[in-house]
């Protein structure tokens, strides 16, 4: 037989086999949905605030997967943009001011004696973090509040405040060091001499006073 014909036949057979294999694999190991959307969604802050002009974080994730700009999420801020840029391998843009500015994290607080129990904020809350019923006082479950702001506008008596989350002993973290100022143990230089002197004088005075009294 002609060697060229044999070669062609063999190649044909091989390509058929691999084609069948690939076809089988594409059906057998088919990935449901768009996996990149999941990854983008997991990077978004899930406040569901809609400041990006999409009705929630997942729709925005889908939009990003379809080429929407990555800088429309004020609650996520620069860190989210950086993470998205890293994931999608695009350039990190500055936050689009049109959609708001990055703000300090806060939670909603209902001034409860002013609440008239209209349930409008309950309907607005995307994560069901407001507790209450019609004509009953409402309150925010602070641990579930994402600080999305959506409950503030609908309130007819303006009794909802967004209160910034204060740093506590538990949530406090070290700041980035200023090189040259801090070292081990002597981490934050302060001149304590004056303060201590004051305290000691006070103590001595107290002792003297007590002695006099006795």
């Amino acid at each position, binding site marked *: 037989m002609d060697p060229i014909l044999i070669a062609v036949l063999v190649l044909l057979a091989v390509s058929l086999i691999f084609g069948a294999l690939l076809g089988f694999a594409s059906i057998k190991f088919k990935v449901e949905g768009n996996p990149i959307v999941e990854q983008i969604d997991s990077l978004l802050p899930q406040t569901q605030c809609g400041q990006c002009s999409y009705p929630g974080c997942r729709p925005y994730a889908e939009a990003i997967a379809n080429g929407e700009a990555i800088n429309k999420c004020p609650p996520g801020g620069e860190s989210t943009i950086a993470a998205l840029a890293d994931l999608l391998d695009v350039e990190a843009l500055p936050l689009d001011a049109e959609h708001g500015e990055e703000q300090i994290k806060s939670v909603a607080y209902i001034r409860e004696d002013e609440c008239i129990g209209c349930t409008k904020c309950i309907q607005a809350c995307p994560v069901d973090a407001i507790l209450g019923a019609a004509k009953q006082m409402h309150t925010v479950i602070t641990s579930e509040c994402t600080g999305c702001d959506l409950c503030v506008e609908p309130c007819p008596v303006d009794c909802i405040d967004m209160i910034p989350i204060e*740093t506590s002993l538990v949530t406090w*973290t070290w700041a980035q060091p200023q090189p040259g100022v801090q070292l*081990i143990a*002597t981490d934050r230089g302060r001149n*304590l001499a004056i303060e201590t002197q004051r305290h000691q004088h006070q103590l001595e005075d107290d002792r003297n006073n007590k002695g006099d009294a006795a």
Partner: protein
Amino acid sequence: MSRIWSFHGGIHPPENKRQSLQRPLERAPLPAQLILPLQQHIGAPATPLVEVGDKVLKGQAIAEPTGHVSVYLHAPTSGTVSAIDCYPVPHPSGMDGLCIVIEPDGQEQWIEHQGVDDFRSLEKAELATLIRHAGISGMGGAGFPTEIKLHLSDDHIVNTLIINGVECEPYITADDTLMRERAEDIIGGIEIAAHLIKPTHCLIGIEDNKPEAAMALTRAARNSELDIEVVVVPTKYPSGGEKQLIKLLTGVEVPFGRLPADIGIVVQNVSTMAAIYRAVHHGEPLISRITTLTGDALANPGNVEVLIGTPISELLAYAGADSQRLNRLVMGGPMMGYTLNDPQIPVIKTSNCIIAATAEEFPEAAPAQDCIRCGHCEQVCPVGLLPQQLHWFAKGKEFDKALSHNLMDCIECGACSYVCLSNIPLVQYYRFAKGEIRREQFDQRNAEQARIRFEARQQRLEREKQEKADKRKARAETASRAQTARKALTPADSQPATVDPQAQLKLLKTAAAVARTKLKKADKALVQAQTDGVDDLAELQAAIDGAKAKAEQSQQALEQAEQQNPAPPPTLAELKIAAATARTKVNKTEKALADAETKGVPSADKLRSSLEGLRAKADAAQLALEQAEANTAPPAAAEEMDIKQLKTAASIARTKLKKAQKTLQAAQEAGEDSASLQQQVDQLSQQSDTAQQAFAAAEAAQPKSTGPDLKALKSAAAIARTKIKKTEKALADAQQKGLASATALAAGLEKLKTKAQHAEQALADAKQLANTETVD
């Protein structure tokens, strides 16, 4: 003698332990005030059990654990609780924490307490509870609740109990002193711990710079039934770290992310053991500890037994601090401790050392230079990390890379910073990066939680929508089924005899109307055909004749039927509807007419004539309605008249009036003839007034049994207030922008204000009324 292993890295800083070992252990004087932070341990802060003004006895529990990982707190002396408030606490942040403040009465009166004679007779759980109630948390460093470490679940088999007496940090000698002075206590504590966790062997690790302590412990261990081995390890910082000590004594490394208990090892500090001994054998909770007072600014450095909560300023005064020379106050050692801002900060359960340092002793750090990649930090890291790499990652905020280089394994010992030739504050960078990573992880968890909740809500809304749709569908189905059932029944029942004359009449009416329409259509078709010049005109004509005949027939039948069954007098509602329909028709025609006139369409004349007809009809309908209204018995109706309806009527009248006024204004502005409009407005305003009056009268007539609705008034007032606020905001905004609408807004604001005042007044009145009623 068991073998000693070694760990990677480590440093040998100047020990500086000699200064504080010159004097024997002393007891600090009773301070004027004890400040007891509710969080002196890892886990949740304790919950106060006392209130301000309560008298407490020495050893009385003043705060209980919140949850599992939390610790009891006891009064260190007898006295009065003078405050429960926020005070500066020992924490690197320098922030305030909730504290219980006790003013001692000087009596030192103990609460009734009693030790256990034979702890071996106790159940494990009982013994663990005893330790928990004594408020003991790890006294070496972090302050983890001790009883949790000693009362492990059954699947943890502990083979080695390691007692940490290494105390590797410079300056600190508190554990050294304790081991020298109270070796029996420590051994007693070890016996209790060993009874709880049943290890196969117990090891006490001591550095070779504390020979007296090692001797004392060896002597005391000889008297014990247990086989306790005192292992002397070479002096090297940080061999006192938990994982480093485990490596030193057993050669085992604790895997990443696991606890020593997972590999069968429990490590406890010597001070903790002594505290357990006091708690079990004497019933004394943890209310005092040994603390090293040292530093060049102190005239009498040494170790003192201090009550928990003693302000450091008192200890400084006791040790003779030279306030001129004191430059920096450090809690803990110089390697891992932190600067205190305030000498009023109290000693807590984990405070092993206080250094009052002079400026020469702890000088300001030299300016950090660039990393020269000398690699010293890598050589001294006891965990075997790459400090240089971690430094770059932390500085560049590449936290994921730092994480993959095992930043979280860093024990923050400070050895790398100590040897850094460029004076780079490496540990501070790691602490910063760790904090950021923890925060990111926390945010990630929160985001995940929010996502789950959001999705659950979406699902719920979807489900509710579906349920509603299903319900509607079901209702429609039942209705249609009922209809068919009725239809099925009618033929059988509705034989001519029982025919409802009204229904029959209706049917006839419809038939007549249909016939008329058909006739009209046929007419139209004929006209069309004629203009088009179609041949079959005759056929069409015939059809029209047929239709005419039919229409006449049906009309006749209808008339007959009507004569036979005179329609019952129309009800008031029907009349009303008829009148309204007539009015609407008139309106529509008027509009169409105006339109036609402006456009100059020839059909205007026709429209005008039809309008007149319609007007006449409308007038007739109105008349009929008025008559009927006059006829219907007014008393019953008036009494039943719902206030709500009246209210609606009044408000409708008002709205109409407003609209009319607006159109009038528009017309006046446009310079059109507005006389008729003016008339209309007057009429409407009259109507509105009457409606309002009727409403007011009805309201007045209504017995005030229910009283004014306070809640409604309240919300009305609140809404009014908010409106004012919003308008004010808008006004300010408008003024700022120089908008023309500002004046209008200002006027509106005034109006709103009067309204709000009325609302407030009404609310106040109602409240007063309610009050008087309740008084009555």
